[in-house]
């Protein structure tokens, strides 16, 4: 799962500040939680670099973070071929980079070519499929370009949301920006300073050039307590993503600063090890491989309590693999798994389990006891595990909680399969099911409960495989969704992943910002930066 790459990673916060000085009244401040590793938009793999890319990169199309639909940007229109292998863009005319160099179809060609070249090692190349050299790029005119990939790619157009076009002519290369801002200054370990791109092409309905805010100062600050303190003091304007505890803390100081945008795309889940030759007692594997057992455990967990107590109600009980925040792909027919220990016990009895004197035993008389591993130092997961421990205790299951450092945790779940159950989360940056291919296909590396199967071991996994492949070969989203809805149903029924909660997207935004509208999708708080403005006040709030 793409999730694991970013798991445990600190999300980037972005906050903007108004300084006291008159000439920089238009300066916004927020914090990056680490030094950006690169300013090359094709090499971005960390949150800090991603923030800079989002604020400075010009893209052909953009997913509107609010509506989650794809909108034209530098391309005024585009068309994906029937076979989903190629895409043609019609580009806007008379557009210039921040340094004045003109934007043409050649830039698009050069950018895609470099992205697909294996020697570039662009993290984005994977999504566009293998066989990078076979990518065929035809520049038909300065404003028309067609790109043909080696194999069909479902949801091809949406992938260009991340492809910031780099100038092929400008001597400043990637430092010449097409987006609303450009990097004007950078002091390693201290800050990144962005200035408004004077050549930015967009104008609002009244004809005023965008963006409205003159400059953005991104302070590099790893410590969240300090970030919070600076927010309280009005030194920064926003925190892009807050966790529940910090949210409540800030709220108790100034309720007008915090913003809960409802469930995010991310989820927290628990799963059982189903790897057939895993170094786990055979009788336990038998439990874990039984969908009755898994589903019963799922029903015995009080998700509403998890959301309410662990996350202070800043989370929603998860329904299935897709968060309701994913407007299009979420299967609305799914109902939340009911919390019912009675039904759970009955389901367990179908498998021969008996509850006797407070201890659940399987058919052979083994007391049901297993361990769940989670990453040490994550308060929320530790607390969820402790609550699940008590929930499962009610149906006679003894749960041992083991917190491990991240590397040994990953080693256990991905290499040695030496674990019984795990509790982790998935971070979803995108919306499209194709981004989760590796998780759902039984052959997938991130098919966590039983990865890299030669052929699907269960009928339901075989069915998921078929549905995922079928949807990936279609271009009509509605038809694809029929298949992916089916996948969601199966996952909820079979409970290979027991989805627990979807955390809410929480952010903090200064009252001196106008036009902010935090959403569930990243970047939650400043996705509409070009429409945001600062009031004249010298103080932030």
């Amino acid at each position: 799962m793409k999730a694991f790459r970013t798991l445990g990673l600190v999300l980037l916060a972005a906050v903007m500040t108004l300084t006291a000085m008159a000439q920089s009244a238009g300066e916004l401040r927020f914090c990056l939680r680490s030094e950006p590793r690169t300013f090359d938009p094709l090499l971005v793999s960390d949150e800090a670099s991603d923030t800079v890319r989002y604020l400075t990169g010009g893209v052909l199309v953009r997913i509107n973070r609010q509506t989650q639909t794809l909108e034209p940007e530098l391309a005024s229109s585009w068309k994906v071929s029937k076979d989903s292998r190629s895409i043609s863009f019609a580009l806007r005319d008379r557009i210039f980079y921040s340094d004045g160099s003109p934007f043409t179809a050649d830039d698009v060609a050069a950018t895609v070519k470099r992205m697909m070249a294996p020697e570039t090692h662009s993290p984005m190349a994977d999504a566009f499929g293998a066989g990078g050299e076979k990518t065929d790029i035809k520049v038909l005119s300065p404003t028309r370009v067609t790109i043909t990939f080696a194999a069909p790619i479902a949801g091809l157009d949406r992938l260009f949301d991340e492809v910031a076009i780099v100038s092929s002519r400008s001597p400043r290369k990637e430092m010449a920006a097409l987006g609303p801002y450009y990097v004007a200054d950078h002091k390693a370990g201290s800050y990144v300073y962005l200035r408004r791109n004077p050549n930015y092409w967009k104008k609002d309905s009244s004809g005023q050039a965008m963006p409205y805010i003159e400059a953005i100062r991104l302070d590099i600050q790893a410590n969240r307590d300090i970030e919070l303190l600076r927010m309280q003091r009005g030194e920064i304007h926003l925190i892009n993503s807050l966790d529940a505890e910090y949210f409540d803390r800030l709220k108790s100081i100034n309720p007008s600063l915090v913003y809960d945008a409802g469930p995010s795309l991310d989820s927290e889940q628990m799963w059982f090890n189903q790897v057939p030759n895993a170094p786990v007692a055979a009788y336990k594997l038998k439990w874990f491989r039984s969908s009755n057992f898994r589903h019963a455990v799922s029903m015995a967990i009080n998700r509403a309590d998890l959301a309410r107590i662990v996350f202070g109600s800043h989370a929603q009980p998860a329904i299935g693999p897709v968060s309701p925040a994913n407007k299009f792909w979420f299967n609305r027919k799914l109902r939340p798994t009911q919390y019912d220990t009675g039904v759970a016990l009955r389901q367990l009895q179908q498998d021969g389990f008996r509850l006797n004197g407070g201890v659940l035993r399987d058919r052979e008389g083994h007391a049901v006891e297993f361990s769940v591993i989670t990453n040490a130092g994550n308060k929320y997961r530790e607390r969820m595990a402790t609550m699940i421990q008590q929930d499962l205790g009610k149906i006679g299951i003894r749960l041992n909680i083991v917190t491990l450092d991240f590397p040994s945790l990953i080693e256990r779940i991905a290499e040695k399969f030496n674990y019984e159950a795990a509790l982790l989360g998935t971070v979803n940056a995108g919306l499209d099911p194709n981004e989760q291919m590796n998780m759902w296909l039984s052959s997938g590396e991130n098919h966590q409960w039983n990865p890299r199967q030669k052929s699907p071991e269960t009928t339901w996994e075989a069915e998921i495989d078929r549905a995922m492949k079928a949807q990936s070969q279609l271009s009509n989203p509605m038809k694809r969704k029929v298949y992916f809805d089916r996948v969601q149903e199966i996952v909820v029924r079979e409970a290979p992943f027991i989805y627990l909660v979807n955390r809410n997207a929480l952010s903090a935004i200064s009252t001196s910002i106008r036009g902010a509208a935090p959403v569930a999708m990243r970047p939650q708080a400043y996705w509409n930066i070009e429409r945001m403005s600062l009031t004249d006040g010298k103080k932030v709030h």
Partner: protein
Amino acid sequence: MKLLRKLAWIILLTVAALSAMASVLSTSGYATQFREETSAAPSRQHWLGTDELGRDRFARLLYGTRISLGLAPVAALLATALAAAIGGGAGYLGGRWQRGMTVMIDLFLCLPWLFLLVIARAMLPLNVSPMVSVLVTFGLLGALGWAGPARVVAASVAALRDSECVLQARAVGTTEWRILLRHIFPRLLPILSAQFLILVPVFVLSEANLGMLGLGVAEPLPSWGSLLREMESLYGLTSAPWRLVPLGLLMLVVNSLQLVMGDEETSA
């Protein structure tokens, strides 16, 4: 002085008695989650309020005290005994032995312990009961905590070994055993008890740190480590000052211990 020492004894005995009677005194178990009353302020039902998961803080404090204050001194005693044996032996034998041990201790102290402990944890079986995890944790602390004190002990023993009074004892024909037992060990006691007193709070805190690495006392068992960890954020403390009670109690107990043991040295 006398009065203070009496007071210290009373405090220690009271704490010991309270934690021994934890099951009688606390209205609820340390693990029961009152999910409708999370992070509650002190009340008649929950004298110290409840924690984030709605567990009775008073019960957790009593049981945590039983675990940490029961085991940290045991671990400290183990570490001090090891230090006395290893450091004392090397210091007494002197010469090559002492140099060898100094090198060994330096190496031992240089090892990235946190890292090694994390690896050790990763190798432990997953299904250990919380109680076993507690014993393993304090056992490890005890087994690994000797090196620093051993260095101090070795230096003191070497000095004592060369002292006039040991020479005098030898000159009257005292056996080596008696010299160790009657002349060196009693004079080491103040050093050992000082080391012991340093180790007790160090171990309590180490357990808290280990907890963050996934070692340490497993849920749902409480320990001082987990209680102290709740104090990470200053913010929570100002809004809920009763959370400071565990820290206050730790300080009280350590100070009492110091008073009691300190007095014993001079009057023994």
